[in-house]
């Protein structure tokens, strides 16, 4: 499972970086979205991969933490998703404004530059 997970993160990041370096604004925003997915998966993975483990420890007295999932990265990733989503939406607005003002979708506002 770890290998597939790592591979997924790697493919998403590589595609994201390639797209961010492209000259069209739409490609940049797609690249940033892919990067945010891969970063979210990465945060999630830092809390150890486990299937079917509860994130809440039931009995405080003598629980074995290795049987449970780590709840903190799940909380972190939720925050990161919300923030990343909001920022991408904002970027989309600026992208449209730039398209409207310059009349093209080049990141520098001028395809010849």
């Amino acid at each position, binding site marked *: 499972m770890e290998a597939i997970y790592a591979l997924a993160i790697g493919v998403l990041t590589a595609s994201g970086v390639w797209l961010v370096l492209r000259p069209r604004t739409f490609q940049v925003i797609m690249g940033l979205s892919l990067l*945010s997915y891969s*970063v979210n998966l*990465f945060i999630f993975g830092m809390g150890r991969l486990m299937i079917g483990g509860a994130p809440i420890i039931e009995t405080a007295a003598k629980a074995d933490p290795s049987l449970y999932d780590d709840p903190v990265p799940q909380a972190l990733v939720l925050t990161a998703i919300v923030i990343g989503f909001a*920022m991408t939406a904002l970027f989309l607005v*600026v992208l449209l*404004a730039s398209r409207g*003002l310059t009349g093209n979708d080049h990141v520098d*506002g001028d395809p010849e530059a």
Partner: protein
Amino acid sequence: MNGWVNHLPIFPIVIPLVAGAVMLLFAEARRAPRTIIALVATLANLLVALALAYIASDAVPSIWPDGIAVYLLGGWEAPFGIVLVLDRLSALMLVLNAVLALTSLIYALARWRKAGPHFQSLFQFLIMGVNGAFLTGDLFNLFVFVEVLLAASYGLLLHGLGEPRVKAGLHYIAINLAGSFVFLIGVSLIYGVTGTLNMADVAARASLLTQDERILFETGIAILGSAFLLKAGAWPLNFWLPSAYGTAAPPVAAVFSIMTKVGIYALLRLGSLLSGASGASVPAPFNDGWLFGIGIITLVLGTAGILTASQPQRLVAYCVIASAGTLLAALGFGGTAMKGAALYYLTSSVLATGAFFMLCEMIDRTRQTGEELPLEMMEPVGQESVDTDFTDEVVGIVIPAAMAFLGMSFLACALLVAGLPPLSGFIAKFLILSATLTDTAPGPAPVTVWVLWAGMLGSSLIAIIALCRMGIHLFWSTDEIMTPRLHLGEAAPVAVLLLLSVALSIETGPAMDYLNLAGNSLSSPQIYIDAVLSGSRAPGPSPVPSIPVEGIRQ
């Protein structure tokens, strides 16, 4: 009384948050309530920051010993809950931010807030984010506050719209989004290795890591440090800065001059914590050699930018880069005396660049007919709530001798930025250069001293040449110069910032006493770590008894 004072550290976050949110309830057309709320909130923020700085100095040792206050946000003990930590460094940064916020707000009230909607709310949220970043003691919480300030800054950068701003904003948002992802990767790697996000706890556990974990940990710290360097405007991650700061609305650019200092603050804070506790070497971006080299290159390139800039506001943006470079190089040089001197330089340069940004726009008005110089003045684009009366018409009291004021202010700003006597810019550079000598052993000076001296003095020389040229071009060139009508509310903030610089140079002794205290506490981070991790003297809501599940990740 004492119980109330214990809750002070939360106020710099709560006041702007509440003010910004309440303002949204008033319709955009109702300016008066918004203006009153903004002024009251910013003033209250300044008072709280001053009170915090006063208590954090050794003036009242009974309240917060060693000048460190730990505020438990949820009432949970330190490594489990999120804490706010106030020490002398964060108190200093809070005061600087509050001063800059109040002056820029007053400047903006004259004209600029009318150029687009929701200026006031975004402004308050920016203040909240910057204050939160200075106060938090938790890495992920730092990320959240940085995002809050970035989100507000995206909005403010686009304030007034127009093509150059949208273009600069596009680059600024893209690079900062990518930077945030780098930040997250660093934070989550550190969490994966140490199992904690509390900065003090991370530092305490760093020394307990095994060799394998240590490698991962240092990788995480290095990635995090790169994100901080991006925020600080360090080479090679600063190409977004000149166009973003050079095109932003002037009052916005003035507040932005503290934003690069957020990155420097984070580098300083985490670097100090890691250096003291881990025993082993500090990871790369916090390492003296790396920071010094990056700082020197940033300084050289920033100075080259000052020489090439043709627009005043762009020139100031390059001054921000040069000051970031000086700071990084000085901090990278290391030594306790250097920390105090660098903090003095930071204070002086924030005041100077803040005043300079606002001044640039007023100077710009003398050349309404000029061809190349005016930053394209934007007409607000099709937003329903925007006033159409955004003109050069100045209402209110007009100050006399506008040209004399502009000239003198430009001179003062130039002296401050270039570091010539008699203002605080000179004292700051002098303190840094003298600190290089006090910290080194007797004998021939090491090569880093020579490099730092050459870099800083050369940068001053080139800056003064460029500023002379700019001054001649702006004031003495034969083009027709209109004497602009300056509103008192626009001139006063610049004057206040410059007078504060004068006060700083007159009161260098007391100021340095405080800054040296702050520098000393950065050099002995164990006090900070102990204060955070021992919940005993923590103010805030009474701690919830913690359930013994410590070390889930071990």
